């Protein structure tokens, strides 16, 4: 019997793994290209789309206002607005994006202003439509300026200085460093992606090394060799873990490169404010995230292997593991919700705890007690899962399920 049986199994599994084209896709290509495509691609697309929308002069319609020529004339003079002639089907035109918005001047508006009556000007728009909201912004700006001017005129008529309107100023200033601001904004997303990709990386090899062996008929071949079941499981498990970690490492690396590229893109396009919102993934943060991902990868690898072993085929294993994806995504998404912050109780919930701690790490916050608790608790869960994997490999009813 071989002394280094675990290593022999691992080397063999590794050889087969790197020769599998599907592995290349799930472990290397997805994490390497997913982030650049999602982040750089989508951001560039968004910048272009928003830029184009802003360049457009929104076409709007004025409803009423026949007895208020002053405000109508004012609106017509706004260069950033194009006034469309009145049509009774203006609601349809907004829905069909023929015009972006409509502003309704109530009857007797101008007369009411002079008498001091409070009238309501209504703006009709298409909710959720970007170009419509730009039209609304411009109408609103004109109306606010017009209202301010009316107030100023009224104060001047009564010889009251305009300063009575602003007895004091309010000024907001951010004192958190830019990396903390960006960490709080997009840090949760990093944790979520690391969790998700860690699982994606482990899933395919976990199926291939368990249900795949059964389906191909190699399970009986390997079980007839003198290797102990424990060493066999350990060799296989280490390969699945390697795949999960490789995916996590490549995804973190790819994220770093994507953020850096995006920062340069924003800087070069003069969008410095957007650049400040981007993360700077330093070596400490990368190392910390990787350390926190380690026990979680062990947990995923062991759980996925155990479940996949019950299946007789690749297809069956996939149908078992798909619900697992939801179980993983739900706590990972929960970490993205506003107001969800790391507490001692949440630190004990697997996946959610790692996502949350990644979020904190991204803001540059290192609560070592929480980190230790999360690392420890995830290690305990991972050990239990690994023990279950060993036990499952001992069960004839599972190995030879027909």
């Amino acid at each position, binding site marked *: *019997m*071989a*002394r280094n*049986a675990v290593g*022999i*199994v691992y080397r*063999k599994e590794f*050889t*087969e793994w790197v*020769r*599998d084209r599907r592995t290349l896709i799930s472990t290397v290509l997805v994490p390497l290209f997913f982030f650049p495509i999602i982040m750089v691609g989508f951001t560039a697309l968004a910048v272009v789309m928003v830029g184009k929308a802003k360049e457009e002069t929104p076409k709007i319609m004025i409803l009423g206002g026949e007895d208020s020529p002053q405000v109508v004339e004012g609106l017509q003079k706004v260069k950033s607005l194009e006034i469309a002639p009145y049509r009774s089907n203006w609601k349809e035109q907004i829905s069909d994006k023929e015009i972006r918005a409509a502003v309704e001047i109530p009857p007797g508006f101008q007369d009411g202003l002079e008498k001091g009556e409070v009238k309501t000007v209504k703006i009709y728009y298409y909710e959720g439509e970007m170009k419509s909201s730009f039209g609304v912004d411009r109408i609103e700006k004109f109306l606010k300026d017009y209202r301010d001017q009316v107030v100023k005129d009224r104060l001047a008529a009564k010889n009251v200085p305009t300063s009575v309107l602003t007895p004091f100023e309010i000024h907001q200033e951010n004192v958190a460093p830019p990396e903390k601001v960006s960490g709080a904004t997009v840090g949760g997303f990093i944790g979520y992606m690391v969790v998700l990709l860690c699982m994606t990386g482990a899933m395919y090899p976990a199926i291939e090394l368990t249900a795949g062996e059964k389906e*191909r*008929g*190699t399970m*009986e*071949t390997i*079980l*007839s*060799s*003198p*290797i*102990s079941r424990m060493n066999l499981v350990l060799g296989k498990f280490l390969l699945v873990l390697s795949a999960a970690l490789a995916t996590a490492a490549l995804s973190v690396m790819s994220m770093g490169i994507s953020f850096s590229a995006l920062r340069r893109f924003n800087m070069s396009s003069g969008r410095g404010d957007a650049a400040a919102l981007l993360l700077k993934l330093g070596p400490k943060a990368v190392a910390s995230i990787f350390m926190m991902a380690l026990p979680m990868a062990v947990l995923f690898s062991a759980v996925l292997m155990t479940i996949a072993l019950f299946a007789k085929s690749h297809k069956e294993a996939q149908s078992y593991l798909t619900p697992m994806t939801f179980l993983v995504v739900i706590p990972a998404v929960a970490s993205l919700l506003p107001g969800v912050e790391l507490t001692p109780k949440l630190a004990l919930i697997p996946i959610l705890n790692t996502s949350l701690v990644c979020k904190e790490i991204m803001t540059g916050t290192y609560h070592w007690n929480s980190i230790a608790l999360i690392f420890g608790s995830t290690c305990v869960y991972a050990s239990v899962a690994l023990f279950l994997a060993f036990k499952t490999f001992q069960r*004839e*009813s599972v190995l*030879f399920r027909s």
Partner: protein
Amino acid sequence: MIEARGLSKSFHDKKRGEIRAVDGVSFRCAPGRIYGLLGANGAGKTTTLRILATILEPSDGTAVICGYDVVEQPEKVRANVGFLSTATALYPRLTAQELVEYFGRLNGLDEATLKKRVEEIFGRLDMNGFRDRRCDKLSTGMKQKTSIARTLVHDPAVMIFDEPTLGLDIMTARTITTFIRECRDRGKTVIFSTHIMSEVEKLCDVIGIIHDGKLLTEGTLAELREKYGEQDLEEIFVKIVTPLQAGAEA
């Protein structure tokens, strides 16, 4: 040497309840002899051989192979056994040589011995032409040769063959039967299961007829002919099994 002592194996089936696949099977097989386990599909042949190869654990009874107990020392048993069946497939993404070397290493062969064994086996089985070809690119005959090389790499004293010719064409099946004979001639203990009468007649020194998990009778072909008064093995088999089947159906 193989010595099975009251081997039994039960499975639990959700629909059928407790199933006794092997029921108190005992036999001995000496070195340099081929023991043929003859039985219909579902008779318990595969389960018996899987127990001997320590892939399954017996519910009751035990077997001793080369002095090692299948229950107490399964890893030592496996180190002395070569197991080949139609269910023992090959790893598709390894080459023929890598596969044989993998099993050699798992059997604890050092690199120098492994290299020598691989050269010897590949030469003997005429495998040098496809040694670097991946197993998923091999023909059925090449695959069978690779499987044989895999079982031989650690030079086991006991060879277990579970319906090794099932579904193979005549030429590939012939490679297997020739190999089984060679194993006997080299002094190995061979146990071989099949439901093909002609194979048993050609190969086996001792024949055991198994039905419904029970070993009903055993002996040399000559002994069975004399005992049941029939010359044809098929007739002997039918004579033994039919009354039991009729009883079970009644």
